[in-house]
């Protein structure tokens, strides 16, 4: 399950729905939550805006989820990513993997967030006391 949205998400409710879908089949759930930091490269971050490529974003996240399900035996997988304006400590992204096996859940969750960070079309723009700037990618 993947979602791209401007509104916040409820981590507890997402984990609870995942647990209900897994109903006794998953022994392990690993989740990652990305938060906006107050500092980036020694500069104070006042606000952050996430731009994305509507349409391509959903395709990219769907592929990442499917690839994780193909590589590991998962009972569930979730990717939720916010776009638009955010402030420090706001949730940005939620990634979760459930499996009968702990190692699979860890590996799949880390794979999804690592891959998202290099393949999904999101761009961060930070406002600092010096003005706004695009976060540099590799």
């Amino acid at each position, binding site marked *: 399950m993947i979602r791209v949205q401007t509104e916040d998400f409820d981590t507890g409710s997402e984990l609870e729905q995942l647990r209900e879908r897994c109903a006794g089949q998953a022994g392990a759930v690993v989740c990652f939550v*990305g938060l906006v930091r107050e500092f980036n490269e020694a500069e104070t971050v006042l606000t952050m805006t*996430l731009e994305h*490529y509507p349409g391509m974003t959903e395709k990219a996240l769907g592929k990442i989820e499917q690839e994780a399900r193909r590589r590991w035996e998962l009972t569930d997988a979730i990717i939720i*990513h916010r776009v638009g304006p955010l402030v420090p400590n706001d949730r940005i992204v939620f990634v979760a993997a459930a499996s009968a096996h702990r190692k699979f859940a860890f590996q799949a969750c880390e794979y999804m967030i690592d891959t998202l960070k290099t393949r999904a*079309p999101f*761009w961060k723009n930070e406002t600092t006391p010096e003005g706004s700037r*695009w976060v540099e*990618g590799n």
Partner: protein
Amino acid sequence: MIRLRYFASLRETLGRGDEQLELPEEVNDVSSLTRWLQSRGKVWECALSDSRLHVAINQEVVKPDTPVSDGDEVAWFPPVTGG
């Protein structure tokens, strides 16, 4: 007609995010389309010469020699920084 899209810092530099145009005759792939756009002026020439830019056709990342056809959506963007 083809649809062209530019994102993030590239969108700001070029002053636009989206445009439509008739596929120029000399354009057959990503490289020749990029060269055609660069001929629009200094800003275009400079901005699109960044070797770190990615290009997607119909929302799939492609290589410089990938063909461009009528009806395609072609997007240029800097390295992604989500998550």
